């Protein structure tokens, strides 16, 4: 349950930072950390929740945008980046990059809240 709450909260707050014009692109790293502090889990789980939340958000948004665009741009970008023109890879790479940042930030949050050493 905790995991699901953390994942959803991470995704929602990350989405909101993306709407705020004053927020830098990495604003979701801060919110992902805060979520991990509020909804405390072990470091590994926190990472996974952060990663999943933003992976799903970014890949989902990218997929939605791409569908509405009929893939006009994604094919071009997937050739600029060395992905052989494969749109699916591009969407996955997008999700992984966002997920990694969020997951790492969530790990920080988890360690920030931890009181005693756990293995």
């Amino acid at each position: 349950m905790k995991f699901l709450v953390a994942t959803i909260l991470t995704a929602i707050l990350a989405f909101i930072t993306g709407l705020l014009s004053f927020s830098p692109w990495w604003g979701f790293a801060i919110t992902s950390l805060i979520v991990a502090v509020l909804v405390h889990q072990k470091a590994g789980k926190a990472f996974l929740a952060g990663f999943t939340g933003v992976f799903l958000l970014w890949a989902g948004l990218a997929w939605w945008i791409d569908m509405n665009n009929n893939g006009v741009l994604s094919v071009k970008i997937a050739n600029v980046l060395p992905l052989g023109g494969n749109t699916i890879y591009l969407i996955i790479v997008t999700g992984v990059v966002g997920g990694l940042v969020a997951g790492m930030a969530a790990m920080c949050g988890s360690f920030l809240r931890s009181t005693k050493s756990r293995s």
Partner: protein
Amino acid sequence: MRIVPFIITTVVTTALVFALNKQWGTIPPMGKFLHPQYGFWQNAEPSSQSFDANLIFADIKGKADVYFDDRLVPHVFAENDEDLYFIQGYLHAKFRLFQMDLQTKAAEGRASEIAGPKAINYDREQRRLGMKYAAENAMKEIDKDPASKLLFDAYTKGVNAYIGTLKESNLPLEYKLLNFKPEKWTNLRTALLLKMMAKMLSSGTESDLAYTNAKSVFIPDELKKMYPQVPDSLMPIIPKGTAFEKPGIMPIAPLSADSIYINNNEIVTAKEISKPDINNGSNNWVVAGSKTQSGAPILSNDPHLELSLPSIWYEMQLQTPTSNTYGVSLPGSPFVIIGFNDSIAWGVTNSQRDVKDYYQIKFRDDKTKEEYWFDSAWKKSELRIETINVKGGSTVFDTVAYTVFGPVMFDKSFSDTLKGGRSLAVRWTAHDPSNEGMTFYKLNRAKNYDDYTEAIKTFESPGQNFVFASKAGDIAIWQQGKFPARWDRQGLFVMPGEDSSYMWQGFIPQVENPHSKNPERGYLQSANQRPVDSTYPYFIPGSYITERGVTIEKYLSGMNNITPADMMKLQNNYFNTLAEDAKPILLQFLREADLNAAEKKYLDIFKSWDLMATPDSKGQTVYQCWYDQLEIGIWKDDLSKTKPMSPWPNEETTMEWLKRDTAFKFIDDINTPQIETLYDIVTTALKNASAELAKKESEGKLEWTKFKNPTVYHLLKDALPAFARKGLNIGGNNNIINAVTHSHGPSWRMVVQLSSPTEAYGVYPGGQSGNPGSKYYDDYIDKWVEGKYNKLWFMRDGDRMDKNIKWTMKFNKG
């Protein structure tokens, strides 16, 4: 808190964000770039994107509406000129900001700020050619006339109004890829854009440096034959037999011309780095009502330029209560450049005239360049220190000396630093103050022939052939520009610059510029050929192209009851005039017995060729390879006597020479002991061509379109091959009416019949949106390839509820 793991993960996270926020070489900051709410995904325009908007700006004076049709062409309805050009600026920026920004930065010599150290020499050359100096001089002229300044100001405000709305997320894609930000627009940048056009069209039309080298080994008589002023096959713009007025100015050659100029055999080692493409030409023609089915004149124009995505052109209609104009505009400049209004239509081709000369400068000290020898004294030069900022490198400073002639483009520090070449100042008409924009402002509003001549007479650079037709039934053409009056061979070669005796003595009076109005024969045409026959009383060198004019003349002279569809067909014509002349000579002088089976096969393809450079033509490919090899066989040995090499004679020069004299001296290969004949050269040429053809055939590239691979590149060319359209199925060549080469060709095709109502058609190889993520990025290309056109909708006030309108953008005063 677990301090150690917390610190470690925090450091790792921060490092990760930092790494994703930084540009690595050509890789953009990946975090920002991939973020679906900031990065490139935001540029993926939904296919159902609406362009409706309600916009409020303090600089808008009245109320204005922009109606977009289904091709995303804006029809702007404003109450006054200021609002009209404000909106034009806004729309240019909204759809084409990156190209405006990039092109003007490149014009100013600031490409290194974007591209890094590899562009330093390009930037130095732009500055040494005085591109910014030229734009500043144009600005002074604009500022002198408050009425024109108002228009340029309004345009600039419009561009900046759009830039002001930009956030990180809606920056054009290229800024995200290259990681930089757009810069504010200024009137100077508009002037720079027009100077970029001037460079493109009037800076590559001379070969003074290369001719200077040719002069060191060839005698004057040879030079005159290798690089003739008037080709035999010429079909001039001004119909043959037109009488010219007595010249208003008679330039006199200095007494020393033979001894220190013509017979000076010193070579130049400096070389231009970004010499404009010789193929920058165009076709335009107009037929009078006497030759058309409707009885109304029809005007056609297709400017040939480097093809790019986004296109150099942006289509639009501009209307106020006192004017109504449709056509293509240049993003970066107000006005319609090629188009029509309710009364007239106009088009342009390049004059190809030589308006740029070099003078040799003697500095007192080559290092400081502070003084140079002029009229028997040391004269102070004006030094401009150019500061070139370089992305990922240290700032470069370059001192450019300005003399009475103009900037010293080449000296010991540029471009030939190895041999430390001569110091050469450049005299170029584009440096002189003038306001070309106003010509277009007036043309947009011209109602008749008199308005047209009034509009164009102040147009100085680059020299253009303005073709004209009116609803009143007039047709006309003027070759308009500011052209120096030269004595024989003045400025063909580098000139002595130690005194004023070799300077231009004046300019050809404007009224004596070649022109023709309503000729008996009922048509006029220009296709970059020499404008006049040898009876014109001035020496007018240039980089003329003869063949297309011959072909157009051949067709137009025989046509009657012409319809717009006929003119569209002619713009897409593939007939190869030069090959028609070459074919019998090639076959006559070929030793067929010396050919092997493979070579015979290509010969058979050539023999059965219909002289059409269609996309699937194999004959065109064989012909082109054979003719290229023939030229190499005849000329390469002779031209290589100088280093750098002397310029190649025009292909029609070679052809005409062969028609006159099949045993001329250059046929012999001077590198062999025996004397070659035309038989040897023609046969060897086919053998060499066959080797190349066999290789191409094995790659499946024998068909002409596969051989030349027509491509429309993105402006950043090889840096973004994924944004290009390659392998387009289109034929033609630079000497053919449909002048498509590998990446160059008809950048806009337009046909306008001046009937009531006006019937107009147009197409360009691109799309209205500069955004590679939009379906409007390249949506005209297929039509253009197939030779099809869009019907141009000349919208009326009463059409505001028309079903053609897809979106409306409202501009209000705020």
